[in-house]
């Protein structure tokens, strides 16, 4: 995957390049919105990491012009301001995620992967989550290339979680998607399916957390 970092602090930009280079992902760097627009005009990128406070035009303006041109490229916004209003407006303007400076590189990389995963999941039949691969067409899952044995209900459950990563699913949400109107089900049945699924996923980087009183949340820990 190819990523473009738009950031005016040289030290931070250099560190980012080195970090992503070590991970095996080339990272291009632009110091201003104008330069970023030149890069975007003759290269294709899978992801933009965009700082908001830039010399000249601000990151918001680039984001706005990209979205008004109908470009759907995932954008992760970096902001030095921790005010929630700032984040909300970034998301309102069409950013896909945000991260507040100072941030942990591991966090940045994880967020980038999550964004790319979302993009790929829509485009191809395969969802890659860390060491877990799920084939939408074949409805089969592999951990580190090893197929795992899942029953139909568990497959449905896994697919539901993969499509709703980092979101809370209530028991009702799950029941509505897994069971048709006529099928009788018990909350117990869902829990049993979940317990078995968790056991099968024990070696994977996909974690399904229970939030008591609220529901379930799946997260890829890569």
């Amino acid at each position, binding site marked *: 995957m190819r990523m473009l970092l738009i950031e005016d602090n040289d030290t931070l930009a250099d560190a980012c390049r080195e970090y992503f280079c070590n991970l095996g992902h080339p990272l291009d760097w632009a110091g201003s919105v104008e330069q970023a627009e030149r890069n975007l005009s003759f290269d294709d990128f899978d992801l933009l990491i965009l700082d908001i406070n830039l010399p000249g035009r601000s990151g918001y303006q680039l984001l706005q012009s990209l979205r008004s041109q109908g470009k759907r490229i995932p954008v992760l916004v970096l902001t030095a301001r*921790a*005010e929630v209003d700032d984040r909300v407006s970034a998301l309102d303007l069409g950013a896909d995620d945000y991260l507040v400076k*100072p941030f942990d590189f591991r966090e940045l990389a994880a967020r980038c992967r999550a964004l790319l995963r979302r993009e790929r999941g829509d485009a191809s039949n395969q969802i890659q989550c860390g060491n877990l691969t799920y084939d939408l067409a074949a409805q089969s899952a592999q951990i580190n290339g090893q197929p795992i044995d899942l029953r139909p209900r568990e497959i449905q459950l896994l697919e539901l979680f993969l499509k709703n990563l*980092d979101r809370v699913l209530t028991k009702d949400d799950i029941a509505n998607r897994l069971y048709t109107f006529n099928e009788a089900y018990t909350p117990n049945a869902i829990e049993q399916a979940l317990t078995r699924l968790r056991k099968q996923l024990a070696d994977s980087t996909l974690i399904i*957390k229970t939030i*008591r*009183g*609220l529901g379930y*949340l799946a997260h890829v820990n890569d």
Partner: protein
Amino acid sequence: MSTTEPEYSLRRRLVTRTAVLLTVVFLMLSYGVWHYARQAANYSYDRLLNSASLSIMEGVFVRNGEPDLDLPYAAMEMMQLAPSDKVFYQVTDQAGMLITGYSDLPRPPDFAPSEKPHFYNARYNGEALRLVMQSKRLTEAGVSGWVHVTLAQTRNARQELLADILYKALLTLIGVMLLTLVIVWLGINRALQPLSLISRTLRRRRPSDTSRLSATPIQEVAPLVEAINSYQQQLLHNLDTMKVFIADASHQIRTALSATQAQLDIAAQVADPATLPHRLETIRREHLRLTRLTNQLLAHAMVVHRGDTQQLAPIDIDALLKQILTECVRDHAHSDIEFGYHCTSTQTRVPADSVSLREAIRNLLDNAVRYGPSNNLISLALEPAPNAGLDIIVDDSGPGIPPHLRRQALQRFSRLASTKEGSGLGLAIVDAVAQAHGGELFIESSPAGGLRIRLRLPGQST
């Protein structure tokens, strides 16, 4: 305090009002003086007219059965006392026939003869006259009936006397009025002097001067001086709090910075590269601490600032808590910490500032994660509180805080355990948020054995 009234000068207003009042009094007094002067003038000249007419009447005698007149000289002498006035007279006999004088002098209306003199006003030949009619009943043989003497005088002397009295009285009145205005003006200045003195003193003060304004013996001004002094004390207190906060914050930041600096220095001169990873790890840890401290300091400042300026609007606390908890679970998905949520309130909307409330709850959850065991059980709950308020409760299964340390836990930069890297600002931020919402913060023991923090938000009514 804002006032929609336009600016005005107390001095000008008082003087204007006094002047208006004095003018009204002046007009009333002037009318009285005029009335009195006219009466006085009429009184004196009527007496003169009366005496002269009586004296003329003395000169009436009967000769040959016919009344006749011997005009006494004294009467004319008397009338000379008003030299600028013309005098007219008429004497008629019992049959109404003219004996002597002007035949066409105006007669009084509704006249009934009597022994008393009859005064009246009339116009004659274009001149205003004051007239008196004196009557005398003759009872001699052959001559019996009323003889009338009419004496008239123009009014010049009267007018002069009236003008003279009026003029002198008005002059005195105006003098008194002006004197009153001057006294009022001086009085106002004298009364306002302490105010100017206070403002002059305040203006001349250096910003570093923290002494109180000296007390004033003037009872009316004392409350003002007292109010200024207590306001100043309040500001000074706030300033002191701020100074302590800045001092504490600088201490914390400098300590973290110098630790990092020291480790960097050592790392730069180290001979054995094998120890580098260890040093770097230390530097990284210190740096993380500094980052967290900076974030918390800014969050604290933000929360306090918003508390001062932000208007609270009703928001759905249930939705907010679910959202924050979801983020928190996502951030700690890799750990063994278990999370729970429980809402027992049907009404979940209260006035709140979502930004600072989010900061407070994030801090409570972070604290629970930070100070709890690795298999912590953290549960967030929303319960109805008295007066339509809501209790946001965060329970953990950590070590808790012993009751005698709970007050201290709310103070800034007071870390109870030195082992864990905390900023010492977490609960202070939550406390500031609680205060900004008019709510309360309670530190209790959780039924699960750990700590329970209860953030109470007041309901709509308060």
